[in-house]
């Protein structure tokens, strides 16, 4: 029975997470910031699945389900904030909100 080495699964999750961080740092658009957050949450869930599969326990999938609930709640509030942001600042650039000087 061929198996996938755990290191490769974690490397996969780590690469996805790094791509999410990269998108978060590079993009200047609140929609892409939210998308990058979703990429990172998904990568974290993937790491839990890999770890759960390593020991053959259900805990990894349970944590994935909890991450899914967190992602749904976070995105609902985040998207409402994006709509609010757009209405208030007439822009999607997060820099538009930096009105505090100091």
């Amino acid at each position, binding site marked *: *029975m*061929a*198996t*996938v*080495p*755990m290191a*490769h*699964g974690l490397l*996969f999750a780590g*690469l*996805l997470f790094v*791509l*999410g961080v990269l*998108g978060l740092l*590079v*993009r200047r658009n609140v*929609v*892409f910031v*939210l*998308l*990058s957050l*979703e*990429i990172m949450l*998904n990568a974290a*869930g*993937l790491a839990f*699945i*890999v770890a*759960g*599969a*390593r*020991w*053959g*326990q*259900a*805990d*990894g*999938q*349970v944590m*994935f*389900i*909890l991450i*899914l*609930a*967190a*992602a*749904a*709640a*976070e*995105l*609902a*509030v985040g*998207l*409402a*904030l*994006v*709509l*609010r942001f*757009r209405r208030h600042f007439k822009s*999607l650039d997060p820099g538009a909100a930096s009105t505090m000087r100091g």
Partner: protein
Amino acid sequence: MNVAFYISAVIAILATLAAISRREAIHALVYFVVSLLAAAVAFLVLGAPFAAALEVITYVGAIMVMFLFVIMTLVPDTRTNGDQPRVKGRSWLVPLLLTFVLIGDIVYVAAMGTAFSVSGVEVSPRQVGQTLFGPYTLAVEMASMLLLAGLVGAYHLGRHRSRK
């Protein structure tokens, strides 16, 4: 069988790379959906079929559709006179191609039959349910409170200020 995992991993990473580098938010969303589907195939190969199904149903089917609605309201020029004659450009071609590779991948997994994973055992939905509502009952309650807080927060932030 290893091959199925690596194909889905490569597709997920390529699609994510495309998602964070697209100019149009809607194109990025399509690539991210492909990335999530690839991750679902990876879950299946890793012996987590329940998580794979949840990824497709909840993440792609619910969360990303919510994202899609918001992006559609953010698009500045939505004034179109009826249906457009055709989609401009070939931006749909690459995601479609990646999805077909994924379909081939999952057919290969299905043809091979048995589940494979890091440790070689499949964690069934029954086990997940017993763990979720056994030792993790408190976490389930906390998740429900979190979703309620998300609902109330989204409603509060999303409503229009009537008096101003």
